[in-house]
């Protein structure tokens, strides 16, 4: 059994103080310009404790928005000297991840960068992830946009996490501590007396399971995605009317992609002159018109709704086909924060409904 004890509610965020004292970089929900964001913290005082989901994911700490690939300088005798930056990354603990983000980043995003299926391992992502311990806190109060249960995950799902903390819904609630792998065990050992062991593991496990089950019942955005993939697999549905109807209002801001735990698209860009400079790997978005624009002027996706169609396909088909992991973990950020209320779950519900009706007629 993975249960290692429990932490008293008032002590959970003391972990920050303890780790910061040990020289560990701690990433936790914090306040940035009035919004709750994952950010580096050095004290429990900086932590936002009454959060559901920070507006960003902690993706940027393993897949930076901007990462230097190389620096180059022209040699006096001709040619270039190319140097890679050192690949030494700080030991990092993400405290207060949610199951949707842990699965999205440590499972799905990892499947893209690990090259498990296709080769081509991206070592900077993998090294950063290897240096990171993901401590997830189970959700107890999903909001109207959360839909992880529909995507096959749940408020207490373990995928991608190293440690899972679940608040019991008992009279005297505690956070049950589960170490899910060796990294998790090592982490729990570092917490010392913060983790108490005076309750029986079996009892803690049952209470933790009850809390998870209770939270699962609180999801509102629940729908059937069974036939969605089937709809998307059929190339004749690629021109279905739903795409233009639902996507025309999209304003191409890209917020859905930048907030998404599984979006992996990036650009490689040079900054500098022919004499010296850097090559950077920077986040990009399939929602931007120049993402696919060829130098010849050829544009495979001339309309914005075609770009959102690509995003929908990526989340519900391409990810699964290409990387064999979940393209969407149901975190709901793209639903919650879209300025014009484009809603990927509406796409999924309508695609699924169309597929079901179609089959009834046949």
């Amino acid at each position, binding site marked *: 059994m993975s249960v290692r004890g429990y932490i008293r509610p008032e002590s959970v965020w003391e972990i920050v103080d303890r780790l910061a004292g040990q020289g560990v970089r701690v990433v936790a929900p914090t306040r940035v310009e009035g919004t709750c964001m994952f950010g580096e913290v050095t004290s429990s005082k900086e932590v936002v404790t009454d959060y559901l989901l920070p507006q960003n994911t902690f993706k940027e700490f393993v897949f930076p928005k901007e990462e230097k690939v190389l620096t180059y300088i022209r040699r006096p005798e001709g040619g*270039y000297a190319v140097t890679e930056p050192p690949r030494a990354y700080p030991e990092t603990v993400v405290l207060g991840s949610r199951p949707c983000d842990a699965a999205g980043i440590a499972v799905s995003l990892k499947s893209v960068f690990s090259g498990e299926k*296709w080769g*081509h391992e991206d070592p900077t992502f993998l090294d950063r992830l290897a240096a990171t311990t993901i401590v997830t806190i189970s959700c107890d109060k999903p909001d109207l946009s959360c839909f992880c249960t529909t995507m096959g995950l749940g408020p207490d799902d373990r995928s991608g996490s190293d440690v899972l903390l679940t608040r019991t819904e008992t009279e005297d609630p505690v956070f049950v501590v589960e170490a899910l792998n060796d990294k998790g065990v090592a982490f729990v050992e570092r917490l010392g007396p913060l983790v108490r062991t005076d309750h029986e593991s079996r009892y803690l496990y049952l209470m933790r399971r009850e809390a998870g089950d209770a939270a699962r019942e609180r999801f509102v955005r629940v729908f059937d995605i069974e036939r969605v993939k089937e709809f998307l697999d059929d190339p004749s549905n690629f021109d279905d009317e739903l795409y233009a109807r639902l996507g025309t209002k999209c304003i191409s801001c890209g917020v859905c992609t930048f907030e998404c735990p599984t979006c992996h698209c990036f650009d490689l860009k040079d900054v500098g002159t022919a004499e010296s400079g850097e090559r950077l790997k920077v986040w990009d978005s*399939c929602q931007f018109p120049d993402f696919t624009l060829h130098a010849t002027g050829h544009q495979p996706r001339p309309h914005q709704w075609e770009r959102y169609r690509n995003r929908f396909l990526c989340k519900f088909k391409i990810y699964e086909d290409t990387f064999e992991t979940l393209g969407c973990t149901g975190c709901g950020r793209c639903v919650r924060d879209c300025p014009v209320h484009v809603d990927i779950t509406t796409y999924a519900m309508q695609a699924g409904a169309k597929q079901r009706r179609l089959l009834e007629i046949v």
Partner: protein
Amino acid sequence: MTQTATGTANLYVPKLARIRKVVRETHDVVTFQLELVDEGDRKAFSYKVGQFGEFSQFGVGESTFNISSSPTWKDHFECCFRAVGLVTKALARLKEGDVIGFRGPYGNSYDLKAMEGKDLVFAAGGIGFPPIRCLIWNLLEERDRYGAIIVVHGARTAGDLIYQREMQGWADRGDMHVIKTVDPGGEPDGWDGEVGFVPTVLEEHVPWILEREGRGLANAMAFTCGPPIMTKFVIDALTRMGFGLGQIVLTLENKMKCAVGKCGRCNIGGTYVCLEGPIFTADQVAAMHDDA
């Protein structure tokens, strides 16, 4: 390379390649003959016909080009590009001895085995010729393994036709048909080639040549690369001639950045061109979502 937990080299760091020779094919198309600068890199380097690479001018960025030479050429490799965007315009200004970045080879390659004993039709348009040209040079190394070879290559105007210095040599061999064409209006005075779009010229010439020299349509294969609109009409023309979609091979040189299935740019529906392509049969392409 830095040794770390994974211990592998950074995917996006290019090797250095020196430009041995610059060939100005047309006013805006350039061929580079290249060799890797590092001797160890040079010795370890090999590629298969039809693969591509990422070529970069430091300070400007990378572009994706087919490796347009035959892998049987041991002393150098080539790329050929049209100066049309930021990177290609910067590359086109370089001269012999300059050093560029190169990553690759990437992608799949043409299946030479499948072509043995077959009559081969090639249809190339504009800057779509290099990915066809590398294959033809490779085949010519062992000419007797293949049946008839028909090459139809076209461009907007006579001044846009590339590899002209090589085409005469191919035509003079006497064991292949080389047909050049320009779009209507693109022919200069005294033009000795065809006038018409590649698909039309293909349909005018291929049937009678195959009739005379071929081994039956079932034993033919066609290869095409060019602008999307040309490719579409080439497939239509070949289909009218009786080619099955499985006998038509395309190379889809889509826009790419990483070339290794991570940057999310080259997918056509659910197919990553860089991972599963760039070479596909037309029936594979027909099964894709129409997103190219």
